[in-house]
């Protein structure tokens, strides 16, 4: 049991190293990479924006309640800005893209594995890492930081609407609070967090799909494992990065 665990870790590490090496290729599959960018980035926008917008309203509701204890409800804008840009936008973007695009990618790879299409690629001497993994990996690294910016704006807009309409706070003052407490460094940190999370978690998602076995059940198990591992890695990594960047 313990031995199997360490074998898996070793396997994932080797798989990750091979995925990184596949990124540095002289003749990349450009068209496939662009197609995957649309798939991963644009395909995940609806779920990311919906979830983040509702979280934005929630941050304002909870923050207003907590700041009422201090008698400082004016600072709701500050609370929203700090919470959104530093924690919620990066975590939710990476976790939701992990849940949507990650499970799609793992499902695709698992289906190809079950139908022996990956073996067929190898027979035709096409490196599956270059043809299947690298385009998806590049797409994830490039689009996730960009999606996080869209997510941040959705979060702030939803928070603004809640604060002004539900709690009757002054909109101009609220937005001033938001802008004053959101520096360029915060924005860069947010994109950096997303970038690191994609870099670390995505090969693991692919590994789960790539190593699938056992018919229809196997495909489902692979997507399930990919999603859970992805979410775990992303959130723990985020805690570490927060401690390093802001601690």
């Amino acid at each position, binding site marked *: 049991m313990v031995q199997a665990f360490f074998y898996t870790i070793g396997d994932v590490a080797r798989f990750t190293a091979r995925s990184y090496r596949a990124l540095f290729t002289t003749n990349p599959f450009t068209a496939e990479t662009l197609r995957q960018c649309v798939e991963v980035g644009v395909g995940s926008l609806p779920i990311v924006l919906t979830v983040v917008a509702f979280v934005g309203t929630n941050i304002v509701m909870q923050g207003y309640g907590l700041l009422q*204890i201090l008698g400082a409800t004016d600072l709701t804008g500050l609370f929203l800005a700090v919470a959104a840009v530093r924690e919620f936008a990066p975590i939710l973007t990476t976790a939701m893209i992990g849940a*949507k695009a990650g499970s799609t990618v793992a*499902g695709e790879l698992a*289906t190809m594995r079950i139908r022996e299409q990956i073996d067929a690629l190898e027979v035709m001497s096409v490196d599956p890492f270059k043809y299947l993994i690298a385009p998806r990996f590049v797409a994830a690294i490039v689009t996730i930081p960009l999606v996080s910016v869209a997510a941040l704006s959705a979060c702030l807009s939803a928070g603004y609407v809640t604060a002004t309409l539900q709690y009757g706070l002054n909109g101009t003052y609220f937005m001033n609070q938001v802008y004053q407490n959101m520096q360029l460094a915060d924005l860069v940190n947010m994109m950096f967090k997303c970038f690191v999370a994609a870099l670390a978690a995505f090969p693991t998602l692919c590994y789960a799909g790539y190593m699938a076995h056992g018919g229809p*059940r*196997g495909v489902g198990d692979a997507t399930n494992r990919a999603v*859970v591992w992805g979410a775990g890695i992303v959130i723990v990594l985020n805690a570490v990065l927060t401690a390093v960047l802001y*601690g």
Partner: protein
Amino acid sequence: MPVPQQPSAVLQGTGRRGTISLPGLAPLGRFLRFAVDVFAQGFVRPLPIAATIAQTLEYVGRCALPVIFVVGGFSLAIAIQAAAILQMVGADTLLGGFATLLVFREFAPVVAALMVALQSGSSTTTELGAMRMKEEFDAMHLIAVNPVHAVVAPRVFAFLLAAPILNALGAMAGSLAAYIGSQAKGYVSAGTYLISAHDALSFVDFANGCIKAAVFGLLIGLIATYHGYHAQGGAEGVGRAANRAVVQSVIAFFIANSLLTALLIKLQG
């Protein structure tokens, strides 16, 4: 009872001028009918108590570690950010109450539900999808066992029970992690932190979290079993059903979270 796959002609729209066509509403109607069916069948005797307990234990066991780690990691990060906010206001001494309240009211139920959706939700969809592919449900109908009563209802009830239990676990892990985060960085002394946390927290906050988690669990269970029960199209279809189940249940429970938070804040006054 055959499973209707197509919406009725009225909802689908016949294409003639003057007919109302509402394509988005037909799946919603099917889902609601499925939900009603699950509850109707769930209370048919013999009540599926043993199966429900077994499933609940399985869900709690599979999700316990992910929930503890994820709520812990999240709360650690939040304690650090909350300390930064409170230092700006000059109210460092309130860090304990601030962080603990956030964990109990918001993070524990949301993250517990998120992990339940990602882990148990998608694995349940896969399980039921594989059963559908192997025509096990049709076999059950043949021997006069209703699969909604025997298979689906215990799983939905198990989601309803497992989510609050995981919420309690997450709340414990999260408040401990927030405490460790504040102490490791030395923002406030241990005594100040604990007193402030003790003053701020009441049983109502914990109960609120449990109610939220139970509602999320019910939503996730219904959506996951619905997609698994109606899966079609071989191995790829099961994967697609699992994907759709995860996406829809996550969206559904975040929307429900917003509404419930507003409602509970109103009720608390």
